[in-house]
């Protein structure tokens, strides 16, 4: 899983540098979360992406898709060669926000505040069909300022959807500033608890902690689960870590060449 997370970072940096665009900071904070979900927790079959009994994953913070594209390729949903297509043309399979035309993408996302309700629908369908599928939704923390999330949070708890797990990528930064400077989210864990969710706060870069936490869902029988994962935006790229401007910024080709050694990028065999 460590290697998988590292590769997510390297792929994200490489894809965004190559394309000259992309939300790099929000992808880098997700690396361990996605590595643990796809390599240690979720059930899926890349040969049969529509397998009804699979667990579902929704990247509600669709702008973090660099990391999603990397993990889906690593999980075998498509050839790694396809990563070269990121934002490369008008009708690319890998646009700047994920679309269902790409195998493994369960929902079109990019407009914030949609993922939890979509996940609820999938969780309800599993209940109707008597499937033990679970639905994992990753939201950004700034994204939680969209009121639709709290509509859905209230309703999911009311319907006792304990097959729904929301992971908040709590990197404390949004496009314009730190979340707490824009519209205060804290006390965030208390908010989820008061909405009727089982809640854990974890280190979102600690693989062991993430793994053991996800293995314990649902935290409370009959309640949906919220995992608040404390992360660092831009994690792994020193220049980008915890920097506001790296929400939507990428390396130049020259910076990429200079950083190759620091990031062990050459071992990927990209370019």
């Amino acid at each position, binding site marked *: 899983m460590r290697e998988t997370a590292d590769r997510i970072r390297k792929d994200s940096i490489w894809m965004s540098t190559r394309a000259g665009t992309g939300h790099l900071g929000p992808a880098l904070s997700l690396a361990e979360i996605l590595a643990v979900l796809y390599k240690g927790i979720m059930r899926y079959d890349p040969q049969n992406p529509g397998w009804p009994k699979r667990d579902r994953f929704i990247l509600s913070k669709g702008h973090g898709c660099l990391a999603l594209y990397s993990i889906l390729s690593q999980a075998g949903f498509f050839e790694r060669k396809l990563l070269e297509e990121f934002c490369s043309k008008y009708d690319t399979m890998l646009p700047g926000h994920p679309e269902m035309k790409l195998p493994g993408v369960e*929902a079109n996302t990019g407009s914030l505040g949609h993922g939890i309700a979509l996940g609820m*629908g*999938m969780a309800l*369908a599993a209940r109707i069909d008597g499937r033990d599928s679970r639905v994992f939704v990753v939201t950004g923390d700034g994204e939680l300022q969209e009121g639709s999330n709290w509509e*859905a949070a209230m*309703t999911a708890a009311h319907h006792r959807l304990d097959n729904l797990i929301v992971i908040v990528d709590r990197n404390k930064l949004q496009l314009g500033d730190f979340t707490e400077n824009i519209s205060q989210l804290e006390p965030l864990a208390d908010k989820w608890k008061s909405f009727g969710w089982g809640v854990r706060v974890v280190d979102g870069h600690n693989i062991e902690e993430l793994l053991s936490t996800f293995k314990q869902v649902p935290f409370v029988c009959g309640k949906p689960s919220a995992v608040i994962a404390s992360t660092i935006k831009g994690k792994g790229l020193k220049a980008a870590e915890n920097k506001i401007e790296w929400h939507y910024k990428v390396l130049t080709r020259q910076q990429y060449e200079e950083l190759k050694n620091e990031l062990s990028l050459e071992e990927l065999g990209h370019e």
Partner: protein
Amino acid sequence: MSEMKKSTRTSFAEALVKVGQENLKVVAVAADSASRYGDFVKKFPERSFNVGIAEQTMIGVAAGLALSGKIPVVTSYANFLTFRAIEQVRVDIATGGMNVKLIGTDTGFSSAWLGFTHLALEDMAAVRAVPNIAIIDPADAAEAYKATEAIFEYKGPVYMRLRGRKEEPLLPVAENNFEIGKGQILTKGGDVVIIACGGAVYDSLKAEEVLQSKGIHATVVNMSTIRPLDEELLMKLTSFIKHIVTVEHHNITGGLGSAVAEFSGGKRA
């Protein structure tokens, strides 16, 4: 016109129970609007959900259900369903072509006593601005019943407009078989063609009687599907009738009139 009267909303609820009995994939998602589903909720509680006064969540949940193979039906006041949740309708329903049936009620002035917030005079404009969604406005309760059956046979997103609880006369449309995308000629006359949808079909038939008494002969068309528009029929009619009037319980911008004007403009171009 028949003395029989019935509300389109009641008719929809009756048809929904029948559809729900035959098709176990049909799931109802309400936003505190469960009464609109009639007996469906009582008969199929395991397939009925209420998300509370939360239209955005209602649409999102419906999309999630559709992504798992269900055929969700949602209903609310047309204005709230469309405007409150238009972003979810666009992103979650339209772009992916989700098999979700959106039922907007209390369209036009049918709940005028509730004030302007509850009027739906721009709902079609909102949905027409979004791609992929079929739009249906049944003329009367009998057509609403047939249309309800038809939209569940149709694969893809549909927006159907219904009116309030008020009983309305049954019109001479039932004998024509309802088909999504097909208009119906109700009267034939060579002087003017009146194209109407929804409750305005009744108004148009009344107008035709008045015109008749003045020696003007009108073709009245029930254009209950606004999208896809019956272009074949329009082409035929406009080839020999010069004057076209459209009538609808909707703002002049973005509804049936706009759809016909866009078609006519395109044809000329």
